[in-house]
């Protein structure tokens, strides 16, 4: 017998997931415009692998296939992986990454809603630790030769010299750390024609695309405004503070906010409800923590972009954050009542 309530609001998990996918489109458009259509190949590859892997695991566990394939969560993971991996990475790298994400990071924990770690970020970390070389070969801005990208992805021998270029983050990190040099931020970012003044030409437009999509998500009520705000504010403040102290050694907020995965992280990764904190205060702590760790890893660490590691590190803290940030329950607040009477 069915119990109350007998009425529900029209809302569903798949609607949420498909809105997230739609919000990624402006960023993808900018990506295609500046770095060629190779990314579309990667997205398709990732999507197919994700759906196949999801279907296989669901079938093995005897869960209803249609119901869970329709929810779109596997597609979100797949798209995030495609967007965070280099668009000229060989096909098997993406496929392997998606398999790690869907099978290990998601379904070994019981599937949708139960994974403590963000599957896409697990895939990224596994791959960058296993294949550091392949994971840092990014296409040069303005390189949009689809045939060359197709060869890079599916070809047996990869002649990448023409298309590969260090990302601004990578360049900044390697050059600034060289011993015995007196390199400055301005020197590195300004010396190369392909780097714009903000976050590297091309990449800032992709970031703006993500920003636009993310703002739409907030407007739609899919994500809360707190997470991106806390993320961007923390990243901006910390990088700004250090840039003020020594602008030659520390890149400023515009660079940090518009380069690498910052925007993607703020609106699409840190906002993952499953692996992120759920309480209001917890969400702010969670997002600010990712931003802080990202900046630390970008500035002092061994990996070019810290979003993935930072996300995983904060994912680890989520149960404790949620536990410690529970709000007081109705009638159990310690503050005085409006009449001044103590409960």
């Amino acid at each position, binding site marked *: 017998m069915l119990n109350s309530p007998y009425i529900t609001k029209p809302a569903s998990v798949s609607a949420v997931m498909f809105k997230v996918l739609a919000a990624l489109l402006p960023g993808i458009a900018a990506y295609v415009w500046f770095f060629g259509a190779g990314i579309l190949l990667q997205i398709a590859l990732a999507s197919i692998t994700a759906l196949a892997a999801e279907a296989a695991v669901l079938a093995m566990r005897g869960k*209803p296939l249609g119901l869970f394939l329709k929810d779109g969560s596997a597609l979100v993971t797949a798209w995030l992986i495609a967007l965070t991996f280099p668009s000229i990475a060989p096909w098997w790298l993406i496929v392997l990454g998606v398999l790690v994400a869907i099978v290990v990071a998601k379904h070994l924990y019981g599937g949708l809603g139960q994974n403590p770690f963000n599957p896409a970020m697990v895939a990224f970390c596994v791959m960058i630790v296993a294949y550091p070389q392949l994971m840092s070969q990014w296409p040069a801005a303005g390189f949009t030769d689809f045939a060359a990208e197709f060869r890079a992805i599916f070809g047996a021998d990869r002649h990448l010299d023409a298309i590969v270029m260090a990302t601004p983050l990578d360049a900044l990190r390697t050059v600034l750390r060289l011993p015995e040099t007196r390199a400055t931020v301005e020197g590195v970012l300004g010396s190369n024609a392909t780097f714009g003044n903000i976050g590297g030409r091309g990449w800032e437009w992709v970031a703006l695309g993500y920003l636009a999509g993310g703002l739409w998500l907030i407007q739609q009520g899919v994500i809360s405004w707190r997470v991106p705000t806390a993320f961007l504010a923390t990243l901006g403040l910390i990088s700004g503070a250090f840039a003020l102290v020594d602008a030659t050694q520390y890149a400023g907020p515009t660079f940090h906010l518009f380069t690498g995965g910052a925007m993607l992280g703020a609106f699409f990764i840190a906002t993952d409800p499953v692996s992120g904190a759920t309480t209001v205060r917890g969400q702010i702590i969670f997002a600010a923590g990712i931003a802080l760790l990202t900046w630390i890893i970008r500035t002092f660490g061994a990996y070019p972009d810290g979003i993935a590691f930072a996300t995983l590190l904060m994912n680890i803290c989520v149960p404790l954050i949620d536990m410690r940030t529970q709000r007081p329950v109705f009638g159990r607040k310690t503050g005085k009542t409006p009449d001044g009477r103590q409960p």
Partner: protein
Amino acid sequence: MITALLVMALGAVLLGAALGYAAVKFRVEGDPLVEKIDGILPQTQCGQCGYPGCRPYAQAIANGDADINCCPPGGEDGIRKLADLLGREFKPLSGEHGVEKPKSVAVIDENVCIGCTLCLQACPVDAIVGAAKQMHTVIAPQCTGCELCVAPCPVDCIAMVPIAESMDSWKWKYPVIEIRKAA
């Protein structure tokens, strides 16, 4: 070589003395853990675990002599709580000690009872009243359902009757998730 031996010996003596002192200083009396375990056990005193009552079983668990899955009246729920308290892995009820049964009370068939008082003496919680050659009866709310009175009865007039669901004991069931395959 001699130095090495001397150094090690000196170290051993010093550390041994420190430990010996601590052993006296921080001696523990009693075992509060037994109380905690006993608090979880259902207190049916049925002896199905192989120990004469709940407390001896608690003592055995605390000493590590008995496993946590020997108590059928406590059921899976009880094992889970014990596992939780002791930080051990949950394991299903061991079959050799019996199976989990619905909660029952003993009922004496008063037509048949001869008033032999054997059940009175078997009852661990004094839940049966009566006197020699007079009809006995079970005080249902006190009965733990341990079944210890069933065997001694010479005329087999005691039956275990499962407790019927009433408005007061009715429980909401665990929600059954219906996922239709077609959806």
